[in-house]
């Protein structure tokens, strides 16, 4: 029994962390806010570190890894508030690998020459749908389509996190775009990967908000003492750490279960999304409160992480959706929906 990443996994994660510390600063995130798309020159660099091809099979120039490594890296993406559609491209890559391995997209994604957007049954919003090179669209009837932005009518939507370029998608399926049918099971798994990925990012966001606020609380002096010496501030931040430390193994276990397609995988993922979401929610609330007015401005960086946390708390099924799924499984009071409804 061992609940921890391997040394290799940690090494990879640390490499990505270092890369992001350098190449995804808060100035970079702000640049994504201002741009039409968050996909930048960094995408190719991420590919060079291996990040865009984590779940791309080795025969298509990827790393051939799975949900454990993806989750580890997405924690780092959360910590840096990386704005690129890394998770979406990974979800798409999983579907490509299963249903259209030879369409060429896998190698393109692994090389950072392409980024993907994805729209699963129940979802109405697609991240970066306009700037993505390819859209993977799963329909409720199990049909899987691969399209380009040109095949769709896209309507931009404004997320609270302006670095998330969201669109509603009006898409008319055709025989040309259809790549597979009866893919319900794979689509459900893809949705679980999305939820796990959101959970992982939420962990990283929580850690970043906490670290930032601890630093502030040490340095900010009021009435002659650092505010971090007040018991109320201490308890606000201790409560965040408790939430985070209990969410971490839950997310780790979900990655483990999903990577192995265990029978409990869907429930484990739902629990991960709930715990990581709650940790991030509490972090946003308490870190804002500790900062006070300065945290309430867009000049301070805190808001970049809070807003990403709120957005990802909602995306890929919010707490209510995932709680319903767990309740159905535990209490049997309703049939468990195979996929989170968004």
């Amino acid at each position, binding site marked *: 029994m061992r609940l921890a990443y391997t040394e290799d996994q940690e090494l990879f994660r640390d490499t990505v962390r270092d890369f992001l510390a350098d190449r995804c600063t808060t100035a970079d995130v702000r640049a994504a806010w201002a741009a039409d798309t968050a996909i930048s020159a960094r995408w190719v660099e991420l590919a060079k570190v291996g990040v865009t091809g984590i779940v791309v099979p080795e025969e298509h120039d990827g790393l051939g890894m799975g949900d454990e490594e993806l989750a580890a890296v997405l924690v780092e993406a959360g910590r840096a508030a990386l704005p690129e559609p890394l998770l979406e491209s990974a979800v798409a890559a999983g579907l490509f690998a299963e249903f259209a391995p030879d369409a060429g997209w896998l190698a393109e994604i692994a090389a950072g020459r392409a980024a993907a957007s994805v729209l699963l049954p129940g*979802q109405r919003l697609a991240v970066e749908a306009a700037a993505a090179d390819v859209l993977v669209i799963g329909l409720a009837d199990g049909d899987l389509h691969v399209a380009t932005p040109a095949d769709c009518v896209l309507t931009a*939507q404004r997320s609270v996190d302006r670095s*998330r370029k969201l669109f509603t998608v009006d898409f008319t399926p055709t025989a040309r775009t259809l790549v597979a049918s009866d893919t319900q099971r794979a689509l459900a798994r893809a949705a679980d990967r999305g939820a796990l990925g959101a959970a992982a990012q939420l962990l990283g966001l929580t850690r970043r908000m906490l670290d930032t606020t601890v630093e502030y609380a040490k340095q900010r002096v009021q009435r002659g003492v650092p505010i971090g010496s007040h018991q109320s501030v201490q308890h606000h931040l201790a409560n965040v750490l408790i939430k985070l430390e209990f969410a971490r193994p839950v997310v780790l276990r979900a990655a483990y279960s999903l990577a192995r397609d265990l029978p409990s995988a869907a429930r484990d993922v739902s629990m991960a999304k709930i715990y990581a979401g709650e940790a991030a929610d509490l972090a946003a609330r308490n870190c804002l*409160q500790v900062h006070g007015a300065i945290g*309430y*401005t867009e000049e301070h960086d805190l808001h970049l992480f809070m807003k990403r946390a709120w957005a990802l708390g909602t995306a890929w099924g919010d707490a209510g959706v995932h709680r319903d799924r767990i309740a159905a499984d535990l209490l049997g009071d309703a049939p468990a929906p195979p996929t989170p409804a*968004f």
Partner: protein
Amino acid sequence: MDLEFTEQEQEFRREARAWLTANVPAERLPSMDTREGFEAHRAWERKLFDARWAVVSWPREYGGREAGLTEWLIFEEEYYRAGAPGRVSQNGIFLFAPTLFEFGTREQQDRYLPAMAAGEEIWVQGWSEPEAGSDLANVRSRAERDEERGGWRLSGQKIWSSRGTWGHRLFGLFRTDPQAQRHRGLTYFMVDLAAEGVTVRPIPQLDGEPGFAEVFLDDVFVPDADVLGGVDEGWKIMIATTGSERGLNLRSPGRFAAPANRLIELYKRDPRPAERDAVVRAWMDADAYRLFTFGTVTKLQAGGAIGADSSINKVFWSEMDVELHATALRLLGEAGELDDGDGGWLDGFLFALGGPIYAGTNEIQRNTIAERILGLPRAK
């Protein structure tokens, strides 16, 4: 006990409702913290004023209706129920005016109150300073005597000044006696933001709009006529105003009843049972807040004072407001992260998050409750 309204009060309600129904803009105005929205909101204030609805509790001579507390509550309920625009003149009419009524000279009142009520002059608060935080006794901005011109020269820096970006006049404390410690030696000034030496730096809030600003004063001349109350008596005067900010005026029950009812409608349109209890909670809390306010009004009408009870009030409404809006965003599901236009839930959420911070953080309010109401020994 009597929870009925009198026939006269009901008539007042009908009149207010009729006017609001006929006049509230069908579409939401742009944010009052944009240039365009600021002007649109001023125009709305003018319209209210012309119909004598801008400052219902004020004396008739300044545009009011001399409404009592109950009528004021009724008006506020109707105002929010109608979905009327936010009050761009709020800092003036609710926060500053009570002080001006109590401590201002007749000349000052005549000069400033009508323009304030009509939305002609928007007032800006000058409480916080970068180093003072929420501790107003730490004010460092200073005023030096200018005998020659008959006034004072003000220098220093104010921050978190709501409406500061577009507003016209600032009220706040400046240190007139540099020798005095803490809350002594402070004087209450009214400052023309168009005066020479004033620099305003807008600060974008969580919603991206410059809802507050940093105000730099560099040798800004303020005539004696714009000193409010006595020199070096600013602290005492300020206390009265922060009493208002934390107390009844800023947050009428109608302010929460309206979104709570909208939340019920939102739930009914697309029920998510997992959120049922949170929706019920939001509605109940808004209702409890209304009853609590009724209790306060009853006390005030019997000659009582609010005092530290306003801290209880402030903690409750500010946390309720956050939860109410967070619940709405959850009800919206995937769309919860989106600007939802006329729904305004996301804007409302971001706005609500300021509640537990401003006008004394909720941590400080809880200390106040413990020390001043429960009588516990002072926290260190």
